[in-house]
């Protein structure tokens, strides 16, 4: 049978293994953050708009907007119990910036294969820039409980081949 000194020596070795493992995991996540596996993690400025005054902002008329310089922005408003617009069509192979805002309570959204997962906290704009490579459809259910109609609230993103 082992005496307590030997066990404690082994345990100290185990402690070192645990610390090294933690540092490696941390380095791994930092690497994936720097390489932008998850869009919008760095560089998207924190922006707050009073959710009761959306009519004076670009969220007044939600939907896709193509600027004269060719940049593509889409503005979505989440409110109980729908996304406006509930279906968004975007072109493939073009950088698109998606802006989401919640107008009343907290909502949420996940575009699974697009690595987008956002808590939409009233007034705080969530922004993601992404180039969708191929045509396809993403459907997101609202993923933060928002009341009795929560399950009827969904958002569809359709990526279309350029005409």
């Amino acid at each position, binding site marked *: *049978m*082992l*005496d*307590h000194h030997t*066990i*404690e020596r*082994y*345990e100290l070795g*185990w*402690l070192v293994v*645990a610390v090294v*493992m*933690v540092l490696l*995991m*941390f380095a791994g*996540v*930092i690497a*994936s*953050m720097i390489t932008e*596996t*998850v869009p919008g*993690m760095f560089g998207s400025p*924190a922006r*707050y708009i*009073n*959710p*009761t005054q959306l009519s004076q902002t670009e969220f007044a008329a939600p939907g896709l907007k193509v600027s004269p310089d060719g940049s593509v922005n889409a503005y979505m408003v989440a409110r*109980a119990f729908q996304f406006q617009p509930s279906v968004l069509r975007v072109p493939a192979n073009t950088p698109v910036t998606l802006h989401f805002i919640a107008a*009343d*309570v*907290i909502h*949420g959204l*996940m575009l*699974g294969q697009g*690595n*987008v*997962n*956002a*808590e939409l*906290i*009233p*007034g*705080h704009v*969530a922004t993601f820039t992404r180039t969708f490579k191929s045509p396809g459809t993403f*459907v*997101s*259910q609202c*993923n*933060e*409980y*928002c*009341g*009795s*109609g*929560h*399950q*009827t*609230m*969904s958002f*569809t993103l359709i990526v279309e081949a350029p005409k």
Partner: protein
Amino acid sequence: MTTAPPPTVSAPALPTEQVYLGHPEKKVTLYFLVTGLLMLLIGVAIGPLQALNYANIDVYQYLPFLKSYYQGLSLHGVLNALVFTTYFISGLLLYLPCRALGVRPNLVVAWAAYWTMTIGVLMAAWAVLGNNATLLYTFYPPLQGSPLFYIGAALLVVGSLIIAAQVIVIWTGWKRSHPGEITPLAAYMSVATWMMWVIASLGLVVEVVVFLIPWSLGWTKGVDPLLARTLFWYTGHAIVYFWVLPAYISWYALLPRQAGGVIASDSMARLSFVLFLLLSTPVGLHHQYSDTGLSIGWKTVQMLLTFLVVVPSMLTAFSVGASLELAAQARGGGGYFGWTRRLPWKDPVFTAQVLAMISFIPGGAGGIVNASLALDTAVHNTAWIPGHFHITVGTATTLTFFAISFWLLPHLTRKPLASVKMALWSAWLWFWGMIIFAVGMHWEGLIGIPRRTYFAGATGLSEMISRAQVPLALTGISGMVLAVAAVLYFTVIFRTLLGRTRVSAQAEVPIPFSQSLAEVEALAGNGGSPKIAGAVRVLERLWVFFALALALVMVMYLPTFISLLLNPHPVPGLRLW
């Protein structure tokens, strides 16, 4: 049980007062434990309905007393995660340290804590049962519930803090009257846990008392939802350590003796609790990786701290594993794995705890995924998350509490456990039910199935559901397995509590405080007490670590709170259910 001789039944049954004679704190402890278990009974009864929801079977339409899936989910989450745990832990972590230190608690204070909690729970239950607080377990504003719910929740926490203060005061008094002595392990760990909870509960207390109660009463017009979420998760992650550390106390300080062995390493056990005291709280931001409006820098720093919690968890796995191996060797076991056969698997107290530990291995691994800023994106708000916490708090903690109830209720009441066999079955079925549940839920989460969704009415899920048929069926089946486990468990508990035979004082189930290997070696060597390692003397100064923990939390959280408070964005409350 393992150590008690065959119980000698005294006839006629002893009057109750005599059972508590010598240790009147047994009665208040029993009240805490049994009230907690009654709350669990209600919470668990709703569980199968939630599981069937995932299998797309809607039972809610047939239930007149529950208005919606979300009301059921609110009850399930609040009762199981908040109410059951708080009662059970308050009872256990009052009784254990007092007995370990040989000090009787002030019973007036203990009962005051019990009634504070109970009045609070009745208020909150009134609100939830009346569908006036269908807010789920997280009660995020601006969804606004009845003031009764928030006041009740605050009283529940205040009750637990009264016990925390009492245990810490008792310990400091013991230190004064025992200069130079080292606190017994079970008491040391209990005090460290309560100190952690004192720091950790601050967020919830401030959120509810300063913001939500005045707002729900109509005294203030709005609440900043981001500030409220940040306060909630300040407590919301640390609370999981408040749930799991009492299980660790049982694994470290009681299980070795229950298995027939000793504590492998006393000093490492203390070190791991000090690490939990330091690291449990300044990590809550990892629940908010997807929140806009918080700095990525602080999220990253708290990610590192969250990862560091892996260290004391790994220490626990090593120490407890070594203790079990020593126990098996003492029973004649050997080999690399062969020793496991020599453990007392027929004892539900032992088996339930080992199954709890096994569930915690995948539970901890999944937790690392949740704590990773990048990987969290794939699982945040999906079914993966409830899959994760059902094998952590739902199994590691709950199954350990089952094991504790199997010896502690007989200890407190002197009534023998009604059926060892049924207790054993309930533990195995609970374990397998939760494993099946977790496999289903983690799998669904990776497909993208959201959590907290009433499937019967869902509009955006059909494509995902078609890809998730197998895991969704697993979730449904697991609910049925767990229902059977729960029926068996509560049958054993109520048959025990309502039993009429009591054993004599000599045959009372003992409190299984374990000896450490170092102590045993010292006794075998020269009959003296073991030399106390310098590290243990340093770790003994818990107030210093309490202060350090507080300082670390301030560094990790104050900048975020200050910036949120300087730029408040209050919005009005809404009732949308």
